[in-house]
């Protein structure tokens, strides 16, 4: 017997799950990413540094700002660019806004239908119209941050190497604050919902987590990766710790840390840095500690809900800080091209994202390397499948449903995962 779930619905991109069963034994389980590869690292060569983020942010739509930020910061790292405090704050607002948009979409529209037994959020809307409309407004509040800071919801252009082309007005920032305040209750609702669900036990197994150390305050920028076994390293050294291999069944390469799969994303961030959450998110984290099962990857949804509360509040506090400092109409920092290598890592909604480039003296790309969170998680998804499948083999319907839920809990962004790191550079 062979079970195929293809295409896997409610994920971004084309993916599928394949389970081969012989008698009542599971012979093979594979999480397939079969979207056509796009070879970003290859075709970006020769591109002038200034335009690199414009192309690289198109790796993904749903985490377009994370790609934009990782790309811009890697260029700045290579060319020795230091940005202003105002730029840093605007970038922080942007990345928290993206978390609100992406998590609201995933938690309510893509994951929640599984738990409530609906095929989609639209079907769900008939029974829960207020909740669905509220969740869409929360998502819209996140998108408002994109619109105001980058120029549009997807693939903005206002965020540049060295800063922002145009600084938003105070009134625009006030609009963000207001939108977040108005929809905040739906972030709280997501915590209430996902802390009340009983998770399927089937995938329970050991998880190793890796996340970006955010410094004193919980957030999505940082300079060091931290693993749950206590090890940490400067992001520039990522190649020593995160190894990649090509696997035939997936166009995303598989990543390993010390020879084993690992998990990145909301659950990893909450596991490693949950104590640094602020305000009500921190209270809720303490309150629901027992509900967060770090050995069950499906807990990722509750971790996302906690981050949703944190990020909504952080957008509000970032706006307040920007307004109290007074907005300056500053231009992006002037940049002089030079030869060099730069690396940056950002927490995308799905986990750590790494961009690394090498430039020639004229500032043109000669080498590029991108590792996306979905690619890092791919081997861990396979691990969860291998653990869960034998337990459910007698009930194919339940097996299919649980494996889909596992894959979806990771919030896989398959279009990102298909253009990955090269192993060798000749």
């Amino acid at each position, binding site marked *: 017997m062979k079970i195929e779930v293809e295409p896997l619905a409610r994920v971004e991109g084309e993916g599928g799950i394949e389970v081969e069963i012989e008698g009542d034994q599971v012979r093979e389980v594979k999480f397939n990413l079969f979207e056509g590869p796009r070879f970003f690292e290859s075709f970006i060569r020769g591109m002038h540094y200034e335009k690199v983020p414009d192309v690289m942010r198109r790796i993904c739509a749903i985490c377009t700002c994370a790609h934009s930020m990782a790309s811009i910061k890697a260029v700045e790292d290579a060319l020795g660019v230091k940005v202003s405090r105002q730029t840093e704050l605007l970038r922080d607002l942007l990345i928290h806004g993206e978390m609100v948009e992406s998590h609201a979409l995933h938690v309510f529209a893509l994951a929640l239908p599984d738990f409530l037994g609906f095929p989609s959020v639209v079907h769900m809307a008939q029974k829960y119209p207020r909740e669905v409309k509220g969740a869409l407004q929360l998502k819209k509040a996140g*998108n408002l941050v994109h619109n105001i800071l980058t120029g549009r919801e997807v693939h903005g252009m*206002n965020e540049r190497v060295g800063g922002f082309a145009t600084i938003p007005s105070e009134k625009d920032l006030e609009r963000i604050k207001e939108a977040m305040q108005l929809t905040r209750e739906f972030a709280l609702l997501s915590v209430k919902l996902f802390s009340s669900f009983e998770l399927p036990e089937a995938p329970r197994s050991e998880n190793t987590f890796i996340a970006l150390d955010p410094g004193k305050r919980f957030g999505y920028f940082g300079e060091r990766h931290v693993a749950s076994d206590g090890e940490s390293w400067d992001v520039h050294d990522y190649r020593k710790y995160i190894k990649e291999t090509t696997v035939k069944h997936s166009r995303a390469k598989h990543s390993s840390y010390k020879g084993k799969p690992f998990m990145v994303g909301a659950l990893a961030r909450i596991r490693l840095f949950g104590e640094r959450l602020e305000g009500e998110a921190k209270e809720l984290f303490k309150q629901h500690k027992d509900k967060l099962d770090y050995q069950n990857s499906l807990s990722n949804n509750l971790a996302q809900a906690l981050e949703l509360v944190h990020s909504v509040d952080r957008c509000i506090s970032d706006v307040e800080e920007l307004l109290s400092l007074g907005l300056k109409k500053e231009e992006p920092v002037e940049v002089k091209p030079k030869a060099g290598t730069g690396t940056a890592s950002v927490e995308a909604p799905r986990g750590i994202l790494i961009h690394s480039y090498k430039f020639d003296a004229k500032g043109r790309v000669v080498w590029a390397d991108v590792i996306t969170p979905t690619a890092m998680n791919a081997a861990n998804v396979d691990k969860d499948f291998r653990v869960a499948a034998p337990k459910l083999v007698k009930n194919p319907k339940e097996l299919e449903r649980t494996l889909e839920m596992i894959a979806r809990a990771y919030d896989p962004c398959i279009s990102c995962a298909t253009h990955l790191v090269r192993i060798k550079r000749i």
Partner: protein
Amino acid sequence: MKPKVGIFGFTGCAGDQLMILNLEDELLELVGALDLKSFTMASSAVEDSEYDVAFVEGSITTPKQKQKLEEIRKKAKLLVAIGDCAAWGGVQASCNGILKVEEKMREVYGAPDVWEIYESKPLSAYVKVDFVLPGCPIEKEEFLRAAASLLRGDLPEAVDYPVCVECKLRENGCLMLEGKLCLGPLTVGGCKARCPSLGVDCIGCRGVIEGEARVKSALQVFKEAGFKLDYVRARLRMFAANYPEILEVKG
């Protein structure tokens, strides 16, 4: 009877489908007005069906995708390409004619023949496309307007003027005069000159105005403004590498 609609995605970033989901205020009403047969990014309810309109995002890069696209074409009365990947092959086409697929695969995956992969091509390389909604990503209001026309059985009105028209309407100064290489003159309008209005030069994400763009004269203008041809070519190829005149730009 509600019109039967399918929304599909091939090689790309799923940004055009996401723009549909970004219609937060209109989404529930919109899908309520449709008989949505397939939209796997948002729903696991998929029915095999004929479609009054099929919206297709992404470029075609695998044999399986080509086959699936042909199936969609057979079942759809109208097939609409949404986004730059479906319209022109997307950014992943920017090396077409320069770098072979096998070479890219060797570099990224370690061997030239891990899978059978095609050079990134637009949908029109394989099937008849009835209408194109350009953009990387599409403009959501443009999508709504087009969807309304299509569902009434009319083809929407295509934009046939450059970004410069909208830039002038917004009374922006010309960025070329500030020494920036702006692709506005060759690029399909409809974005309300969003980038130049922020002071950022147009990167051509809505693709070239088919049949109307004067590529050769624009190249001359860019050259006279002091831009090196290899830089200009890289910029033009970003979103329109499969446009014949741009594919031919050497240097």
